[in-house]
């Protein structure tokens, strides 16, 4: 059985231009965010330790045709890529993405583990992996902080919580979302980069993949207006300061519900 790892191409945040409160990504380079790269590395380490193949999976627009993106992912431990390209999936919401991914992984088949990152670098909703598991009817657990191995059809994993570390045995097939600090992303070696161009990339037939699942619709993304600091100093006992702050907030109309 293969391991699948999902990732998303999105505009590089350092290339995003803001003018008049509107966000412009026209000039931005599209890349895979650090959280997803960490997921790829965690999956690649597990694949290497268990002697399995790792298939990278992504759904999105024509940006997925970029050869540098493909070689980049293939230099990071993926044995092959399976991609769904349809412009209806550009900047899709988490539901639309998860529906397309579910159809894609079903077509790929022969997997018993799907690894997702903590969230995407642009919107960071942290929903896609969870919805993917639900749509596939598989166990899905997020917040995974260690992938320790596979024994038979059980994934050994850990999850850090406030009260300690949960040691998990997850029956496969399953979907897991790993934390952004599960490991460091890989520094691809020159040899891996040179070999990446020779690894297979499969473009799944988008006609068979639902790319327009109804979900939310993003009408506009805008920055809140910046406001000059008020530079008010409060003084007195803690109780007096608390009262002054509440009075100030009320005066500024920031407590519409009142006390």
């Amino acid at each position: 059985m293969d391991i699948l790892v999902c990732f998303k191409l999105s505009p590089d945040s350092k290339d995003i231009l803001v003018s008049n409160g509107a966000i412009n990504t026209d000039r931005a380079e599209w890349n895979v965010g650090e959280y997803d790269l960490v997921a790829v590395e965690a999956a690649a380490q597990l694949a290497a330790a268990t002697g399995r193949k790792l298939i990278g999976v992504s759904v999105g627009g024509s940006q997925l045709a970029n050869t540098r993106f493909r070689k980049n992912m293939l230099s990071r431990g993926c044995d092959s890529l399976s991609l769904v390209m349809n412009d209806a999936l550009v900047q899709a919401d988490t539901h639309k993405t998860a529906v397309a991914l579910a159809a894609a992984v079903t077509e790929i088949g022969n997997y018993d583990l799907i690894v997702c990152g903590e969230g995407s670098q642009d919107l960071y909703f942290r929903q896609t992996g969870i919805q993917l598991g639900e749509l596939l009817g598989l166990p899905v657990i997020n917040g995974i902080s260690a992938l320790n191995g596979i024994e038979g059809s059980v994934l050994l994993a850990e999850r850090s919580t406030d009260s300690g570390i949960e040691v998990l045995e997850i029956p496969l097939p399953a979907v897991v979302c790993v934390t952004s600090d599960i490991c460091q992303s890989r520094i691809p070696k020159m040899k891996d980069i040179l070999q990446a161009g020779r690894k297979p990339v499969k473009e799944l037939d988008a006609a068979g993949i639902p790319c327009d699942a109804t979900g939310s619709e993003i009408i506009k993304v805008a920055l809140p207006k910046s406001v000059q600091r008020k530079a008010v100093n409060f003084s007195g006992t803690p109780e007096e300061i608390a009262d002054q702050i509440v009075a100030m907030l009320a005066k500024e109309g920031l407590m519409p519900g009142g006390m």
Partner: protein
Amino acid sequence: MDFRFTDEQQLLAESLKECLVRSITEADIQKSYETETFPMDAWKALAENGFLSIGAPESMGGVPADVTTQVLIAYLVNKYGGPLAGFLTLGLTTMRDLEDFGTPEQQEMVLGQYIEGGTPMALGMSEPNAGSDSSGIQTSYVSQGDKVIINGHKHYNSMASQCDYVLLTAKDAAIRNPYKSMTMFILPTNTPGVRITDLPKLGGKSPMHICEIFLDNVELPKSYILGKEHNGFPQLMKNFEIERTVAMAGALAVAENAFEDAAAYSKQRVQFGRPICENQLIQEKIFHMKMKVELMRNMLFKVAWMIDNKMDVRVDHALCKYYCANAANEVVDDALQVMGGVGLVGNHRIMRYFCETRSQRIGAGSDQVMIFSTAPQILMDF
């Protein structure tokens, strides 16, 4: 015309930058200057990630690379790796000589340890009476059966006291013609009779030592001759165009860093109630610095591309060497002017750049050598 790097070159650049950013910080670099110690841990990280084997023979686990890729690597290591570039520049330079002239045993001896994070070969050519005129060396050897006895004195040898091997030139005492008497040797620095001392240098403390080498009846087996005996001068000339080009990757990287520091500082520094970047005299410097950095980049990678395409670069490489060395000095000087006192007092990297960049106009072919060796070539077309 396509100015873009290939996918592979772009990915290599991203990967190398990430490795450098993770392995060495500005604080690490400062510490290496204060203690005059080469940052070996970061150097080994480059080796572990396979970056030192780029350009090495495939038989040794190396990955072939064209000159453009090697210049790109040198640029990045200079830009993000501080003193790591000292070893890398020597490594790239001498790797080519070993590949072109070395026996498999010699390659294994020197490159085997290098690509695993050991030391490169230092260059042992300059002497008190042989700087630009490398044929004027006085270090000489006499043959005794299957070994040679070397005597002489080298100086201005970058990092020789920190390297395990020196690429040494010496002339056969029995031959008068300097062009036909020079032989190249691989000299292990722990050979009896070899004494290496550090010289003081402009800018004071540095993790890249500049050395003097004294050779007192040094016995070497003839198997340590690199290439053919008495063929040292043509061997020396074969790769110097590439070596000068690789060296200028450092000029570009330092100029670019200095420009970036100055541009960022000009937006932060407030005088007379506004950032100094709003003053047109500062903007003129920003504009000129940026323009020079881009011209350096264009010239440098164009020459690398010409070499890869087997074009004649006798004129172009010299124009590039002269321009990059001088433009880097101008950019660093302008950057320091924008940064004012910050560039004079304290420990900002611009202070190191100001001192180190000056050597670019003297080492690897001085300004004057570039002009007198090239102007006649240019005039031949008319």
